[in-house]
């Protein structure tokens, strides 16, 4: 059944999204009408008016789901299943042209040559200032200063249109022409012609949007997509050629070679015998800096201010054409896929923005269904399942082994013939260690069960020890004084601060976690039981005395029931705090549990699993609280009415 649903995922999501929108509007209209009626017969501030109503509950839930469907782009995927693939092709073109556009003041404020010139000039000026401050000899200063001056004039010579090599000019013009040609192809409806059988097969073979870990299918599946993909390859080649062009020529080369030779000469000429080590180092460092500037200027990346105008105009025209060719895709990108878009990397496309970290509801559900399958689970362990466990194992767990030691006699030794004669002691030991044949019973297991079991075990021991101690502290001056500092000192420490210590002492398996949760629950239970006990009305205790009750009877029949509301509230709070602590503790260490699952998913950046665990934790926490509310309503109906 699930596979059938998964196949029609897109259709189902689309349907649900529409229904949610309609329901949201309907519930809001209905709710507003009721509010309008209320205005006439209820005053503002009357708490009765805040009772809510199923229509507002529906509107609230629908709003959350609509936002989820919308911002995770699940709705977009449902209504425009090919949009991501097309946007991927568009993104490929963007990525391809990016090296070219980054040279022109399109995204940035300055022409790239302008900012390079400014930066290099500033650094050369800095070299001048450093030289003036240095302790070099006058001869050295003159020599180095001349070198810096030569570098500066070489840099400036590149900015002059007169110095541009005609060969370079020709290559720039070629690039502009090639960009124009590609633009024409982009505008041509016939380009790139019919798809080949191999292309079609490749496109059809790839998994759909979100169906695999590559997220967005890379090969174009639409005509528009194919056009962009074809153009992207050509643009990438042009951009590569364009970035290879360097503003060098015969004049420039000669000058730069002269500088280079001088630097090499200087570097070779340092004589360690004449100078102190420190002084030598200062000179070497300075020449190294000159060398760095030399290499940068040698790249020839600065062009005269208007030398690239032709290319810039072509790139701008190309981009305008690309924008036009996107057509309706622009609106789908802006409206159906909010806060983010599809971006292309070297080999694949991916969702960026809310579509990435907010998994789609349908994918999340599918993941939940997938890991709920006990055969798959997570890390080889089911989420919630059962296993057959022999009763003997449980008997062995609960019966202490030393019982066998109490049986009179000696444990048998093996006989010379290698046999062992079992006696009564051995038989008792077999029972105590669970070493006997027995029937098996189903026992729950899995990540969810482990988490629940830990919370319940911690809570159980916390209640078992905390409630009596709390009552005792509420009744005895000694107990209050004696135990108060102990509990008040450890209670304010955040439970997770204890975790590293506790997990080291008790181990990272269940023992440590249960003890940690016990500590959490214990403090809360002591304090709530104490509050309950001290809150008993004196007249009730007087009454019980007058009616002939003994001390023990008063504790059992008056103080305990009187403290029950506080104790149950304490349990409710404990469950909440334990639940939070447990997940954090499971993240720290362990091999099972919901927190463990989330931690592994975090390491793998598996957002879907993370969301599944978050939802599971929320639902289970809510479930615990609902159960406690039900228990409280059932067991202490008198609360607040005494």
């Amino acid at each position, binding site marked *: 059944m699930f596979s059938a649903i998964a196949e029609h995922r897109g259709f189902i999501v689309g349907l649900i999204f529409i229904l949610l929108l309609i329901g949201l509007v309907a519930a809001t209209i209905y709710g507003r009408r009721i509010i309008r009626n209320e205005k006439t017969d209820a005053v503002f501030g009357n708490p009765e008016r805040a009772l809510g109503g199923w229509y507002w509950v529906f509107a609230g839930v629908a709003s959350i789901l609509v936002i989820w469907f919308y911002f995770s782009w699940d709705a977009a995927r449902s209504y425009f299943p090919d949009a991501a693939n097309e946007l991927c092709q568009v993104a490929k073109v963007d990525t391809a042209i990016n090296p070219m556009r980054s040279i022109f003041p399109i995204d940035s404020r300055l022409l790239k040559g302008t900012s390079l010139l400014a930066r290099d000039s500033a650094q050369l000026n800095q070299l001048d200032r450093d030289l003036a401050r240095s302790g070099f000899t006058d001869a050295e200063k003159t020599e180095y200063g001349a070198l810096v001056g030569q570098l500066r004039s070489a840099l400036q010579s590149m900015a002059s249109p007169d110095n541009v090599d005609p060969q370079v000019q020709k290559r720039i013009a070629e690039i502009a022409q090639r960009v124009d040609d590609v633009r024409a192809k982009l505008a041509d409806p016939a380009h790139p012609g019919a798809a080949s059988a191999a292309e079609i097969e490749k496109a059809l073979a790839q998994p759909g949007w979100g169906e695999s870990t590559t997220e967005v299918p890379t090969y174009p599946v639409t005509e528009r997509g194919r056009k962009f993909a074809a153009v992207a390859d050509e643009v990438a080649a042009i951009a590569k050629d364009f970035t290879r062009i360097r503003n060098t020529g015969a004049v420039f080369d000669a000058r730069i070679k002269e500088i280079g030779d001088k630097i090499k000469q200087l570097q070779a000429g340092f004589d360690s015998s004449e100078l102190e080590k420190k002084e030598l180092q200062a000179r070497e460092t300075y020449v190294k800096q000159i060398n760095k500037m030399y290499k940068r200027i040698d790249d020839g990346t600065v062009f005269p201010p208007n030398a690239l105008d032709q290319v810039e105009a072509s790139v701008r025209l190309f981009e305008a054409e690309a924008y036009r060719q996107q057509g309706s895709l622009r609106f789908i990108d802006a409206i159906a896929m909010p806060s983010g878009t599809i971006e292309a990397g070297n080999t694949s496309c991916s969702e960026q923005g809310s579509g990435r970290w907010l998994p789609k509801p349908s994918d999340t559900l599918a993941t939940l269904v997938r890991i709920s399958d006990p055969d798959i689970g997570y890390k080889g362990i089911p989420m919630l399942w059962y296993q057959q466990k022999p009763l003997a194992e449980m008997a062995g767990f609960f019966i202490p082994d030393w019982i066998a030691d109490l049986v009179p006699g000696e444990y048998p030794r093996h006989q010379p013939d290698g046999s062992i004669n079992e006696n009564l002691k051995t038989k008792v030991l077999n029972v105590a260690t669970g070493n006997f044949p027995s029937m098996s019973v189903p026992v729950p297991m899995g990540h969810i069960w482990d988490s629940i079991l830990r919370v319940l075990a911690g809570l159980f021991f916390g209640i078992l020890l905390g409630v009596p101690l709390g009552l005792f502290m509420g009744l005895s001056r000694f107990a209050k004084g004696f135990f108060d500092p102990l509990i008040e000192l450890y209670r304010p420490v955040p439970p997770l601060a204890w975790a590293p210590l506790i997990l080291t002492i008790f181990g990272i398996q269940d023992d440590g976690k249960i003890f940690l949760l016990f500590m959490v629950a214990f403090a809360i239970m002591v304090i709530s039981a104490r509050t309950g006990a001290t809150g008993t009305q004196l007249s009730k205790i007087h009454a019980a005395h*007058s*009616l002939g*009750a003994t001390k023990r009877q008063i504790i059992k029949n008056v103080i305990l029931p009187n403290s029950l509301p506080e104790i149950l509230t304490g349990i409710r709070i404990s469950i909440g705090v334990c639940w939070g602590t447990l997940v954090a503790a499971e993240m720290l260490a362990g091999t099972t549990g919901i927190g463990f699952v989330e931690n592994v998913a975090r390491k793998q950046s598996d957002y879907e699993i993370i969301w599944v665990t978050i939802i599971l934790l929320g639902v289970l926490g809510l479930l615990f609280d609902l159960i406690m509310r039900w228990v409280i309503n059932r067991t202490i109906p*008198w609360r607040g009415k005494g």
Partner: protein
Amino acid sequence: MSELVADSIDMTFHTPAGEAVQALKDVSFSLKQGELLSVLGPSGCGKTTLLNLIAGFLRPTGGVLSLNNREIDGPGVERGMVFQQGALFEWLTVAQNVDFGLRMKKHNKKETAKKVEEWLEIVGLQGFGDTPTYQLSGGMQQRVALARCLINDPDLILMDEPLGALDALTREKMQSLVLKIWKETGKTIMIITHSVEEALLLGERLFVMAPRPGRLHKEYRLPFAEWGLEGDLRDIKNHPQFVQNREEILSMIWNMEEEIMGKTL
């Protein structure tokens, strides 16, 4: 003969600041079997302290209290107590509240159930046995408190402003009920109240207490309780002698209150 004897009782409290406050000074009286005593006085005169001493919740710092020639040493079943707000166990039903004393003594279950039925009928709560007490009105809760106390068959019944929190109509009905129980059971009853009318109606004997230190100021012997057994309570309240006594006691208490106010100012 059951008899409550208070022999020069002194009671001194120590405040947390270390001051000694004398709540009762040299209180002596005796109460015979079947007598109905009401105690009246301005607030702070030690009425409740006196009651708590007799109930055994407190110990006197001087003097001796005895019931039936046995010194009072802690709370006991022979001295039943009815509290102002009922002090019912709200987690129990009406019947479980009423049979609380017998259950604690592990009394025969069948007999207990029978007795509970009887007492619920006497206080007018038949059929309410399984009702949780928090669903009862204030008057009904006080009836449960009465039944819970009486089922233990105490020698002496102590009532600490038992009708104080009730509305006027319920209060009058409850006053009749107390008188009826007094007559039918012949118990010794000691009632503390701050209502002069109630003290006059429900007191065969009436102590007016004075504050600072708390002491017995004046004792009255009154016929109204006897009358109340037969006649209409409202007629008694309009009787000239009742009106005269009421005005006398009221002005007495007013004078004491003024004295206190003068002293504290």
